[in-house]
């Protein structure tokens, strides 16, 4: 069984490599190979292939912004839009550096959900009043300020239910061969 991602088929070994990389992308090919029982050349080839096909987009540092001294407030904006203008509004929001995530959602009305970062409440309001409310197609906005974070994880291979099936199948096969 293979898991297709934009026409590139990933097998259970690829997914295991991705999972290991998501936990720590600074490991050597040898270390990854050792933890998965693979030759380092296999790990190298598979990683290069996944980089080439854009499955691995980049290697980056995850910063604890609070420890780095930034005292920001985070808010979630729910923007009710005219369906004809919704994509344009979402694209415009993506251009603003204050906005860190933008999603569209279809409930009873077409909504845009965006996560916004601001220095304080006043600058948050100023940004929404001068840059979001005037966008053509914005019908109204509800903003909730985040007061406490209980969980935050990035989307991971480990969260993908298909990955569990693939890895289980792989280990079952290995078990059968050993018998």
């Amino acid at each position, binding site marked *: 069984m293979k898991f297709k991602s934009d026409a590139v088929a990933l097998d259970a070994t690829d997914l295991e490599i991705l999972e290991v990389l998501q936990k720590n992308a600074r490991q050597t090919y040898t270390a990854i190979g050792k933890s998965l029982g693979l030759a380092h050349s296999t790990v190298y080839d598979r990683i290069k292939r996944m980089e080439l096909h854009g499955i691995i987009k980049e290697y980056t540092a995850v910063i604890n912004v609070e420890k780095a001294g930034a005292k920001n407030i985070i*808010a979630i*904006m729910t923007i*009710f839009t005219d369906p004809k203008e919704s994509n344009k509004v979402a694209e415009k929001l993506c251009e603003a550096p204050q906005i860190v995530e933008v999603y569209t959602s279809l409930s009873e009305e077409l909504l845009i959900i965006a996560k916004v970062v601001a220095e304080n*409440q006043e600058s*948050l*309001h100023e940004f*929404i*009043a*001068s840059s*979001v*409310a*005037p966008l*053509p197609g*914005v*019908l*109204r*906005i*509800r*903003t909730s*300020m985040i007061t406490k974070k209980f969980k935050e994880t990035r989307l991971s291979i480990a969260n993908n239910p298909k990955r569990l099936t693939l890895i289980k199948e792989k280990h079952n096969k290995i078990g059968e061969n050993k018998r």
Partner: protein
Amino acid sequence: MNEKMNSRTLRTLPREKAFYFFTSIGNYTGESAASLKEFMAKITEVNVKSLEFHFYRGDFEKWMAEVLEDKELAEQIGTFRKMSPIGENLKNGLYRILVRRCSKLRSAP
């Protein structure tokens, strides 16, 4: 007061300079006003909570002084704030100030 100033205050503004009515930080009602005339009409329509929010932050005065460029009107709103009006008293008081100002601007040479 001259004719040029009057027409400036009574002009219709581009979308990005309009006044956008919020009920609290980041909560936009969907109502906006792009001229003094439209602002006057919206005062009677929007939730009084929105009027109270902007009135006590000084947003109305700021928009009138900086965008409509009518410092006299801004001062009148500021004076009215000292009376700490709320609810319908605030709505009616604001409306009266705006009606008076509009008729003065229109009748001035």
